[in-house]
């Protein structure tokens, strides 16, 4: 293909995404340097970095930062490992595979607020929930999920929703794995683990990095699950950066501080991305 054509084919996506990035981003940066509270329209003017300082000095800022990272990291590990295991498990033909596939992917179809409501009220509730019921049946004390392990509970909910995403991507990619190579390896007496390490894992390297990168973007901005279940608490145990921004944006209606928070979120996301690219991104273009 000639280089001009390549450029023309790539241009539309790059141009629209550039606009989509630069317009809101420059507005956000502008808002972050002015006094701008929706509830006080008469207060205006440039205030430099005061909005940033306010957001930065919030005692909840560092715990929220840490929670954000823990949330992203744990969900990534859980979904990738589970996703790999499950998609390899269903990578052979068997009766009812179609149904099994749909059942496995279904959690991804559920809206985050709805999934949070189901988990909070029908499953994890220490009085009326199913988990508590089963705990009582076997004579154990029900776990007070959202009170004693709020962040872990949210990790469980998010992982339930996103493992299907990993399964979907891995499952499709496994279809293109060279079956002859696998059969040859089996004949040579290579065991499951050796095949997994030397054939499957390299084959899935790119899909894995893609799953990690995409999920990272979504999980840095997890909101609905926290909003519906714990409200960020107890204390700030399940508050993430997005939730802090939400409080400034939709409760204090302070667009200035919320924009400053948004800029922090971009910076954090880019730092995380740089590390991830080091770790997994290089497999992208292999």
């Amino acid at each position: 293909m000639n280089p001009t054509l390549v450029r023309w084919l790539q241009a539309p996506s790059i141009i629209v995404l550039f606009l989509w990035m630069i317009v809101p981003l420059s507005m956000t940066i502008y808002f972050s340097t002015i006094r701008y509270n929706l509830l006080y329209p008469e207060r205006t003017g440039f205030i430099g970095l005061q909005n940033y300082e306010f957001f930065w000095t919030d005692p909840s800022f560092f715990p929220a930062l840490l929670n954000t990272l823990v949330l992203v990291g744990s969900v990534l590990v859980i979904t990738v490992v589970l996703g790999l295991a499950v998609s390899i498990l269903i990578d052979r033909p068997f009766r009812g595979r179609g149904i099994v596939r749909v059942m496995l992917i279904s959690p991804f179809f559920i809206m985050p607020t709805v999934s949070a409501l189901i988990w909070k009220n029908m499953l994890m509730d220490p009085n009326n929930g199913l988990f508590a019921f089963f705990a009582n049946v076997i004579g154990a004390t029900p776990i007070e999920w959202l009170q004693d392990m709020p962040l872990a509970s949210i990790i469980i909910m998010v992982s339930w929703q996103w493992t299907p995403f990993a399964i979907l991507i891995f499952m499709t990619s496994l279809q293109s794995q060279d079956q002859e190579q696998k059969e040859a390896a089996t004949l040579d007496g290579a065991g499951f683990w050796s095949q997994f390490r030397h054939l499957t894992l390299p084959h899935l390297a790119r899909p894995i990095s893609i799953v990690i990168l995409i999920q990272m973007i979504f999980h840095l901005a997890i909101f609905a699950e926290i909003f519906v279940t714990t409200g960020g608490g107890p204390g700030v145990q399940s508050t993430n950066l997005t939730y802090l921004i939400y409080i400034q944006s939709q409760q204090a209606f302070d667009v200035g501080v919320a924009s400053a928070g948004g800029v922090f979120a971009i910076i954090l996301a880019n730092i995380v991305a740089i590390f991830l690219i080091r770790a997994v991104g290089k497999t992208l273009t292999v």
Partner: protein
Amino acid sequence: MTDKQREHLKNRIAVVAAWIVACLFFFPIFWMVLTSFKTEGQAIAIPPLLVFEPTLENYTEIQERTNYTKFAINSIVTAFGGTALALLIAIPSAYAMAFNTGRWTKDILMWMLSTKMLPAVGVLMPIYFLAQKTGLYDTKGLLVIIYALMNLPIVMLILFNYFREIPKEILEASRMDGTSTYNEIRQIVMPLAWGGIASTALLSIILCWNEAFWSIVLTTTDASTLTAFVASFQAPEGLFWAKVSAVSTLACAPIVVFGWLAQKQLVQGLTFGAVK
């Protein structure tokens, strides 16, 4: 036990394990659907009721209160429209990048992904103002554009992955025959990557379908989607688990049915072992 028997047994165990995992994953959804046929009193009963006299009263009430069809149509139009627009822009680009990977390809992809890093709640006001100023507020067109842009980086990245899995030799052979780029995409790449495109489209549709921030902030009545439909039943004063289960069942049903139909497409194609 012979090797064959052992192999057979192993397969059996794997199948049983697959079913168990699938049931575990599906259970919360099953429970939601079951709850939607209970009364509010039954929904909170302990021990939980597995056998009960099902009622349709939740569904009747939803029917009385809202226009489900309107919300569903808006969801279908915006989710499919946004996905189609994203694919239209992404397929040529991803194709160009996958088969002409250059020094900057990875960086461009990473940059594209980085456009998604600004949390929605942080750019609420800029987008809201733009929507008002352009007069697109509360139109389906606006949601289609937003959804397409929102999902474009992801669609790019996933398509790129599937295109990269197509062996280059196939393309080179066709180029020797003098096939035009258009025909190359249409006749060779698309059929081979069909499964990948289908699963990318499905992912994008799901993401649009469940998008609950912009669809609520940027619509009032004309363009409201099923997420607004769910919001109108979510967390009222009083017991609402059975009703919200019914609403969620209705909100998710079209996409689950669609996924069911689409899943065959997902795994077709991308089987080039034989071609190689």
